[in-house]
């Protein structure tokens, strides 16, 4: 049912045992060494270089870059749009998951596949797909290029699967006995939903929302063609990084990038906390 491209529970980290079973042999030790060197060269050192470049001019410089009116406007727009999209997704994503699990109608399986398409599409293609309907040659006569509504629509498109795919499995697993008991005791459907179903969905909605929020904050590809990149109006954080880099301002690019990195790490931590809480309760 959930043939999904999104790994809903976030990191596939090892939770079963405090330590592995085997001690390192010489062979596996060498393997670990090679893996760690590659991982450092590919991921850790470059990320450290970003933090280093941001810290280069000291905290004052870092701060003045972010507090610069134009950069701050871009950051604020990014956060506000991401929050709006997350709020909409929390509600609509739950409704979509509900319909996909509880309702039966012909064509439901197709809709289930459609959910994954925004995530499977390359981001630049996602932007182009939206422009074909809402762009300059729109058959609707609506042009979203260089508007905040356009940014909102693009973010809504790319974050569609997150809440749906985290809520869906929880709804499937939900015990119907409790709902039937509530109904037989005279609870209305609204009361049953509010008191019985919603509380068990909240962790999944929260997890899906934080994944979606992180994605929306850092989104780049789908916005390149849509956001006109007008300062103060339609410039978002990721495009601001590109502009800094093209203007040969590495420190500025690194400062904004560090902020995005922090958001990414905070999201991972929040997801970890949620999944542990759920694991403890279950």
């Amino acid at each position, binding site marked *: 049912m959930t043939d999904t491209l999104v*790994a809903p529970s976030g*990191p*596939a*980290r*090892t939770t079963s045992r405090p*330590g*592995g*079973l*085997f*001690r*390192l042999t010489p062979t*596996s030790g060498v*393997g670990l060494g090679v*893996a*760690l060197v590659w*991982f450092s060269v590919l991921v*850790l050192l*470059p*990320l450290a*270089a*970003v933090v280093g470049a941001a810290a280069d001019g000291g905290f004052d410089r870092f701060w003045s870059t972010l507090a610069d009116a134009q950069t701050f406007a871009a950051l604020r727009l990014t956060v506000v749009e991401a929050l709006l999209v997350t709020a909409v997704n929390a509600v609509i994503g739950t*409704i*979509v998951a509900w*319909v996909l699990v509880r309702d*039966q*109608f012909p064509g439901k399986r197709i*809709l289930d596949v*459609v*959910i*994954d*398409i925004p995530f*499977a599409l390359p981001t*630049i293609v996602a932007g*182009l*797909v939206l422009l*074909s*309907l809402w762009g300059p040659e729109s058959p609707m006569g609506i042009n979203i290029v260089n508007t905040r509504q356009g940014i909102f629509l693009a973010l809504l*498109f790319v974050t*569609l699967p997150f809440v749906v795919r985290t809520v869906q499995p929880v709804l499937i*697993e939900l015990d*119907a006995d409790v*709902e*039937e008991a509530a*109904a037989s005791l005279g609870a209305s*459907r609204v009361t049953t939903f509010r008191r019985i179903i919603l509380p068990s969905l909240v962790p999944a909605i929260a997890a899906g929302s934080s994944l979606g929020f992180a994605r929306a*904050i*850092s989104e*780049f*590809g789908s916005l390149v*063609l849509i956001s006109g990149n007008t300062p103060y109006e339609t410039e978002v954080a*990721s495009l601001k990084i590109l502009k800094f*880099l093209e203007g040969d301002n*590495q420190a500025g690019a*690194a400062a904004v*990038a560090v902020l*995005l990195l922090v958001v*990414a*790490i905070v999201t*991972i931590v929040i997801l*970890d906390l949620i999944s542990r809480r759920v694991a403890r309760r279950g």
Partner: protein
Amino acid sequence: MADTRQIRARKGPVTYLLRAFVIAYLAVLVIWPLFEVAQQTFAPADVGDEGGVGAFWERLSDPSVTYAFNLTVTVAFWAVLINTLFGVGISLLLVRYQFPGRRILSVLVDLPMSVSPVVVGLALVLAYSTGKGWFGEALASVGFYVIGTTPGLIMATAFVSLPLVIREIVPVLEEIGADAEMAAHSLGANGWQTFRRITLPSIKWAVVYGVVLSMARSLGEFGAVKIVSPGAEFRGETATLLIQNRYTNYEEPTAYAAAFVLVLASVLALVVVSLIRKEDHS
């Protein structure tokens, strides 16, 4: 699972309202724009021109377009190969062996999925570009250049799709446990024999699944590649970069043709993934 038929059987107006809403929402957000892209792809470029498959094919056989797709496939191939080898190795180490820093490493290997693609590109530039990067000068002195070359594209692509294989293998390894491997070991099998005869057959589908996901992600990577690539025609222009360049250059028919190929590739990946899931469950 409890019998939910009773609850599902009660269909009020709310059920139909929600169903209609979800269908309309997904139709407007995803299905209609996709349909529009298909139409643009096969539309004639100018009034009086030929449309259809012939024109589509002609746009794709332009040398710069074939160059872009060749480069994309080459980069994706190497990135997926590296990630598969690294992913299988690191998953085995994380699940089966005990070593200091194991838990933190398991969190770190998931980090690349949460980092904005632009930040990935920036990180590689700040680490390896000649002139701006930490190690750029040292690498240049031995004649190795990362930024602006195919190895740089491969690194950027490998970075963003790094956790996909690991996320698939780790849960499977945890579920199957190490009993069979220990039995093989005590019967005198060496490490390689145990891996090839015992471990590999049980993680086979997880590896295939991870490879398909990585392949889809690698073919469509845009943000990270955009930063590390010169991105000019015949010079590091991958398929996604080509789409952006052509679209902004008012050569929309070519952009749509290339985008349509990538849409087909991602839909194909979705179909393959759901087939594998079925195979795996049976």
